[in-house]
């Protein structure tokens, strides 16, 4: 059975802010099905009562003192912006 339909691929692309042309869409559907089919393998493993690992090394919260330190100045922060007015990042009108 198909794990992910072309319809769902379109929906996920929308969530990921990607536009796939029809050719990409069909290749993506084929490849994701192939990969997700393989992922079924994980169901062979009994994971009841197994806690998930999100971090390989045990780590407590890491805090620093609430002190103001140097940060990137505006000119340098804007230097890579594809479009700015020297003060702001410029985007197409939103509202």
């Amino acid at each position, binding site marked *: 059975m198909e794990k992910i339909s072309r319809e769902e691929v379109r929906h996920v692309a929308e969530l*990921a*802010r990607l536009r796939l042309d029809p050719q990409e869409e069909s290749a993506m559907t084929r490849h994701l099905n192939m*990969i997700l089919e393989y992922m079924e393998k994980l169901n062979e493993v009994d*994971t009841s009562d197994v806690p998930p690992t999100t971090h390989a090394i045990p780590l407590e919260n890491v805090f*620093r003192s609430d002190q103001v330190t140097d940060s990137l100045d505006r000119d340098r922060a804007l230097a890579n912006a*594809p479009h700015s007015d020297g003060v702001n990042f410029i985007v*197409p009108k939103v509202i």
Partner: protein
Amino acid sequence: MASVTHMTIHELREALLAKKLSVSEAVRAYLERIERLNPHLCCFLTVTADQALKDARDYDNSRKDLTASPLAGVPIAVKDVLCTEGIRTTCGSKILENFIPPYDATVVTRLKSSGAVLLGKTNMDEFAMGSSNENSAFGPVRNPWDPDRVPGGSSGGSAAAVAADLCAAALGTDTGGSIRQPASFCGIVGLKPTYGRVSRYGLVAFASSLDQVGPMTKDVRDAALLLSVIAGHDPKDSTSVDHPAEDYTAALEAPITGLRIGMPKEYFMEGTDPEVAEATSKACRIFRDLGAELVEVSLPHTEYGVAAYYIIAPAEASSNLARYDGVKYGYRFAEARDLMTLYKESRSRGFGAEVKRRIMLGTYCLSAGYYDAYYRKASQVRTLIRRDFTEAFQKCDVLIGPVSPTPAFKIGEKTDNPLQMYLNDIFTLPASLAGLPGLSLPCGYTSAGLPIGLQILGPHLGEATVLKAAYHFEQATKTERQTPPVPETA
């Protein structure tokens, strides 16, 4: 004296300190070789020749002290996923083609303060996603041992540059094998440290719970030397391990008599290329002859590593790569009239096929209704994989096995089948998921003359033991070492 570009870091340092060679001569030798061979091998995306020559002159004019720091005057290459202030950092992606970072990654700062001379930035799979370097937006790197074959990935540019003597050593990064596998395919030494041992600050994120920076070098001593420079706690990376760094060269020569070397039976099963399997078994015998004790162990969840990794890493990537929106930096589709079109078109035109595939896969695995079945399940299996290692390390000090089930494959051989490409990572992914240090070093050659890598894994923060085992193996097999048949003029 060996040819300048063929020297290891420690040989080059000796020659420089003995005044047999000036830093300018060394740098010029590398630049000349890069100019000649890089058009063919495609290892470097950016060569920082002017700055390198200037740094060299500073040493030769005694404006900088050659004796003061461990890497003084040593020409080093850095993977193009590590930020370098004022030097283009592309991540092998069209979306960052013109990105010039305003700051240095912590590892780059450390290289500079230890006196290294930056030669340039090396090619890689886009955003470090790939095992062959074919996913670079700037063309594939070629394997110096056979230009029709891949150098491995994603740190393929760094691996090939070290193998072809285009730099003394390089930095790579490893998320699921991206240092170890290209090191194996190119016949060099590559070390992925324990997760958190080296700062990730300024490493452009792929999968944040797995990414790690490490040395790619011509021999084990160099790997120890370079690791000693880059390792250590960094307040700018909250996941960096707060544990003092060591001088990893100090313990290299300590005897390995009685060292317990585990052979995970899952790493010695059918399915591995016969020549790789034979070279790995031979390596076990060499260790036994060196006085180590071989122990059979089991890592029963090995076969689930690929599935778990290729859910977890893409899930993290889909989140990390959301930042490429055409607004703050990177490629922007300038004709967009509304914000959604700006996002979609900038991303769709900027990212390559594999990056899109992983963003899609990750987004799907994290989306409502699928999170438990995929992401949560994979994270639970990750726990079981970690436990396998914890148990194995109760019976042994290090583990050995192959790095990759095959030697370097042909360019184009696996590009139509992403799953087949992923399955090739079976032996490197589990240690990544468990956050363990892993090293690859040459242990033989196929009949076609391709290098084969041996993988040595250690427990958390066990780099010194891994390096010691590797050093003894290297010393015992030194006479068998070959160099790639790189044409002197390409």
